[in-house]
């Protein structure tokens, strides 16, 4: 893993405020300009512009030969992306919701993710698989999952999960340029969509021009000394909100945005926990056998003595995401649960 603290390619120029989805689209457009081998395919990515605005305006700019609507045949078109990547193209393929993983999982974990290894490193699969994740708007058990723990569990694909507009752009650029398969998971709640509850943090400064955010480098979203919150995606925004509230009471929360699960920036986790001695993990995926356990193990494998108090985990309690709002809010990591967990950690 090679990571650098600073962006690799020309320094960011002017900053403008963009939504996460616009920032993501900007990166795709810039890479398509740079490299004719980049194409984007998936369901409703053409004239619709992506159900979650992942491709808005791209059809007009690049035409139907490069922004390609597919039939509802995920196994076929994801597999097609793999074959094209093997031949040196740089396809970006969209699986509309991560929840639909089941209909095309074989192509993803047995092919996209394993070809490089099985070929002894001889065959590369430089593709990006994009997919929307997350709930909070009553879309039910088949349309609200994160499942990033599942992708991250299966070896051979990088897994990136941006939470801010600037990262959405920089990580997309890095993902397209990466010679490995990269799964790029965007939470609907961070995209800044006009038809969802507005999250003020979903619009933010985005550097102009060409830059990468290195994959595998976590970001300290807020510095603090009392307790570390390790989290990702929409939960970063919630955790920052809670941290601000608690700072009025003198509780100083550090928020670490993982940005990518594979590779996982274990060093950043250890550095922060070594400083605060307290760990809260916030994860919108299912609790058991997933990201939160991995983060905890990262600390305890290294030195359980770093922890002054027991770890608090705020995740989905191993239940399908319920439809009715009171039930869904009860199981998702929202402000109330995050705040309670931080209070427990600092009180212990």
């Amino acid at each position, binding site marked *: 893993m090679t990571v650098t603290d600073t962006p690799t390619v020309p320094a960011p120029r002017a900053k403008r405020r963009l939504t996460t989805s616009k920032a993501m689209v900007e990166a795709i457009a810039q890479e398509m300009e740079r490299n004719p081998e980049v194409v984007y395919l998936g369901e409703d990515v053409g004239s619709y512009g992506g159900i979650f605005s992942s491709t808005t305006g791209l059809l007009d700019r690049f035409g139907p030969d490069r922004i390609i609507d597919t039939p509802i045949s995920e196994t076929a078109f994801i597999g097609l992306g793999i074959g094209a990547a093997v031949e040196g193209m740089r396809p970006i393929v969209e699986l509309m919701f991560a929840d639909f993983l089941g209909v095309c999982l074989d192509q993803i974990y047995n092919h996209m993710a394993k070809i490089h290894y099985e070929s002894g490193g001889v065959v590369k699969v430089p593709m990006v698989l994009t997919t929307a994740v997350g709930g909070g708007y009553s879309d039910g058990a088949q349309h609200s999952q994160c499942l990033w723990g599942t992708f991250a569990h299966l070896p051979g694909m990088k897994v990136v999960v941006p939470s801010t507009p600037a990262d959405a752009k920089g990580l997309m650029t890095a993902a397209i340029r990466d010679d490995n398969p990269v799964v790029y998971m965007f939470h609907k709640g961070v995209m800044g969509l006009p038809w969802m509850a507005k999250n003020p943090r979903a619009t933010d400064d985005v550097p102009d021009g060409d830059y990468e955010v290195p994959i595998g480098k976590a970001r300290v979203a807020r510095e603090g000394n009392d307790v570390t919150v390790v989290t990702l995606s929409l939960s970063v925004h919630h955790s920052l909100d809670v941290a601000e509230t608690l700072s009025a009471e003198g509780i100083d929360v550090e928020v670490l945005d993982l940005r990518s699960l594979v590779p996982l920036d274990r060093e950043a986790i250890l550095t922060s926990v070594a400083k605060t001695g307290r760990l809260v993990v916030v994860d919108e995926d299912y609790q058991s056998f997933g990201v939160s356990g991995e983060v905890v193990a990262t600390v305890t494998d290294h030195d359980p003595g770093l922890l002054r108090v027991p770890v608090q985990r705020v995740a989905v309690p191993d239940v399908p995401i319920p439809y009715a709002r009171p*039930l869904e809010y009860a199981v998702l990591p929202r402000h109330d649960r995050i705040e309670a967990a931080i209070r427990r950690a600092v009180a212990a």
Partner: protein
Amino acid sequence: MDAQTRVSLYETMVLSRTYEEAILREYHADKGPGFDIGKGLVPGEMHLSAGQEPVAAGLCAHLTRDDAITATHRPHHLAIAHGVDLRRMTAEIFGRETGLGRGRGGHMHLFDPSTHFSCSGIIAEGYPPALGQAFAFRRRGTDRVAAAVTGEGAANQGAFHESLNLAALWSLPVVFVVEDNDWGISVPRTASTAVGSNALRAAAYGIPGERVEDNDVEGVYAAVGRAVARARAGEGPSLIEVHTLRLWGHFEGDAQGYRQDLADAPTHDPIPRYERRLRDAGLLDDAAVERVKASASERVEDAIRFAKESPLPDPAAATAYVFTDAPSAGGTR
């Protein structure tokens, strides 16, 4: 076709449309300001079936509550035509504890064991379970059938083809129905398959395939009649595609900027058209139409009232029902 059946097809279509109009009203009532999909009495995605009533009416006229249906993300017309309890279905859509799934499922996940009705939000994935229901029905020596319904977009999914193959191979009593409304969200049928009619695909599996044109409820009724008779007689599955119409957006909030056929779509509305036909045949008059509409509206508003007056689920019970609490039934039923 006898007069009574024709009028009842009309009644079913009117009930379904009345229902969809009421859900449309309730869905949009409190999404503002602007449009926030997560807000309101009915949050989340909403896929309405207005325009596709002929499929449900024509299909379900041949089914009893003992026959099974697996429907799609656009399930209401099928649920209504199949006789799913309107109050409990509505309560589910409103996320209430009295709902079919106690508020856990929502509008894409309606399960009613009393009518063997179910649906799924994952495209084409309702086809395989229908095989299993048919398998169980036949194994128990009954002549019950399972109907599996998808959209034309779903016919390009692997599960569709595997299901046709297995059902044909094992002569399972399944009626496969494809609702071709020309659109898979924003992708027209012509951009998703090179085959002109999905009914032709039946040939690949050695089963009868039939396409019903023009969203014609009586055409659906006739085609399904043949397919159900075949299935009940133990002669295996059939595939029927109906050229139908998605009158509204893919989901509510869909501005349909991609769609060129909208300008004249309302004139194709199958309900006024069928109504005219029945009037011309002397089977309906103003008073009868009024009666049908009033009764539909009364049933629908009763269901909506029931849903609204029902309690929301207790957040403390959010993790209930992942597993059954009952001791194992040990294979008895």
